[in-house]
């Protein structure tokens, strides 16, 4: 289930914690499993739990509590748009509507070609750069006016 490369990365995370506290690495391990698979299946969550020696249900609790884990398949690119108040004042809601129109989908939907999933998201801690978006949980995009959004969409192939 987990590739040797993923396991190697998980081992590096385990090493950060006291030897009897392997469970502390579960958040990082789930993030690594999600990177490998594109989303988190029940099998992946169970594999992480077994590797860390914790009950699968405890790992499942973590996976369902934190909202950057995707428990269902998403498009090749997941674009999360912040619409919280500071972003909203600088066009976050407009940016989300603009993206919906451009992609022809609503929030929590994926384009027919499986390329882009759109998510409405909470504060990313970058309000000075509003409107802000994150691609695949990793790449933060700042000052997303219509022109910048067009550029981003052209890049997502």
């Amino acid at each position: 289930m987990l590739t040797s490369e993923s396991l190697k990365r998980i081992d590096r995370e385990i090493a950060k914690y006291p030897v009897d506290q392997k469970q502390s690495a579960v958040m990082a391990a789930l993030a690594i499993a999600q990177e490998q698979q594109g989303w988190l299946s029940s099998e992946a969550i169970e594999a992480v739990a077994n590797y860390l020696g914790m009950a699968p249900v405890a790992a499942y609790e973590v996976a369902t509590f934190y909202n950057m884990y995707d428990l269902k398949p998403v498009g090749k690119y997941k674009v999360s748009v912040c619409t919280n108040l500071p972003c909203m004042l600088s066009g976050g809601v407009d940016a989300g509507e603009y993206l919906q129109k451009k992609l022809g989908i609503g929030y929590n939907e994926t384009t027919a070609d499986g390329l882009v999933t759109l998510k409405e998201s909470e504060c990313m801690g970058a309000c000075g750069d509003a409107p802000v978006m994150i691609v695949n949980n990793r790449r933060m995009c700042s000052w997303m006016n219509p022109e910048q959004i067009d550029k981003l969409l052209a890049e997502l192939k």
Partner: protein
Amino acid sequence: MAILGALNPMLSVGLDGDKAWRLADYVKRGGYSALRRVLEQKMPQGEVINEVKKSVLRGRGGAGFPTGLKWSFMPRSFPGDKYVVCNSDEGEPGTFKDRDILRYNPHSVIEGMAIAGYAMGAARGYNYIHGEVWELYERFEEALDEARAAGFIGSDLLGSGFSFDLFAHHGYGAYICGEETALLESIEGKKGQPRFKPPFPASFGLYGKPTTINNTETFASIPYIMNMGGEAYLEAGKPNNGGTKLFSVSGHVNRPGNYEIPLGTPFATLLEMAGGMRGGRKLKACIPGGSSAPVVPAATMMNATMDYDGISKAGSMLGSGAVIVMDETTCMVKALERLSFFYYEESCGQCTPCREGTSWLYKVVHRIENGQGRPGDLDLLESVTTNIMGRTICALGDAASMPVQSFIKHYRDEFAYHIEHKKCLVPVDVQRAGSGFFTATV
């Protein structure tokens, strides 16, 4: 450069260029000299804590608790594991200062944590970093590698016999983990639900061991305090409000961004530094301390000073120093609706008054905003907030209630207009113009 301006700065001095975050650059700016001196002089732990007490550094994460006092609660001479934890889970809407500290000055956090570890007898630390700022989590790990290679963290620091190791832990999208005991649960690999207190973390913290949790900016200030002395640091601010602070200014201003100013600086000065109001429009309201702080009307805000006591006098809280500026194009009902949705979404679900109450707050504000408000709704909202506040394990319930109470208190007419006329006092196209999103194309 995202720290856009400063008055008598400390934290943001010399942060020019892409390499400012590197160890070599930090050392050139005088970095790690405080840690070196503490270790070489074998400064008594109590003396370090005293210096921090003298500085009247107050927690920069939101609560404003005196840092030195917090440190003195740790049973520092007790044998056994103790932990120092940094809270970089910055997700309070409006706040983005720790992001810039981690981006441009991560070694100040590492040095501050190492000094804290020494002062409290802790040999291990964790920095919990907001999952959304992934690049900075990776950068912090790189900075840790640099510090470890140079002997500033690890075992037997600079040959002193004191060992302190430090690791980064990332969040993955849960606002509640900014609450210190939820954060500890999260490091332990569990869902982030706050613990009932007491016991406090100083006696029962990470893995059940004595633990002190401070905000990123708090730790980053420690080296500066040790270098300049607690008294000088205090004098850089105003009595009972020591030092300078980073303020994150967002919303309807011309230059949103971070500004470092001495505590006690007038709000009007900060607004001017941020380029003034966008489009020259009029200030309507300001949330001066992150979304959980009560909203303050323009007239009061323009006379307020930016410090813990000054903002408290204006009827709000300095909180994390997140200044959300709203001009006359803002519909206060819509603004509150979005904040209420946030707390509903982020309530961890542990306490019934918060889990159910935040849902009701959102539903009722939502129906007012959407032309379905009922005559008794404002009283209903009041009653829901008073039934949440003080009845939950952590402060999220209070944080959800305070915006509701303050928005209704100061802008009751606007809410009443919505309920009566089924529409907004501020026309939708005016609101849209305020965001400035379409100015590039229209």
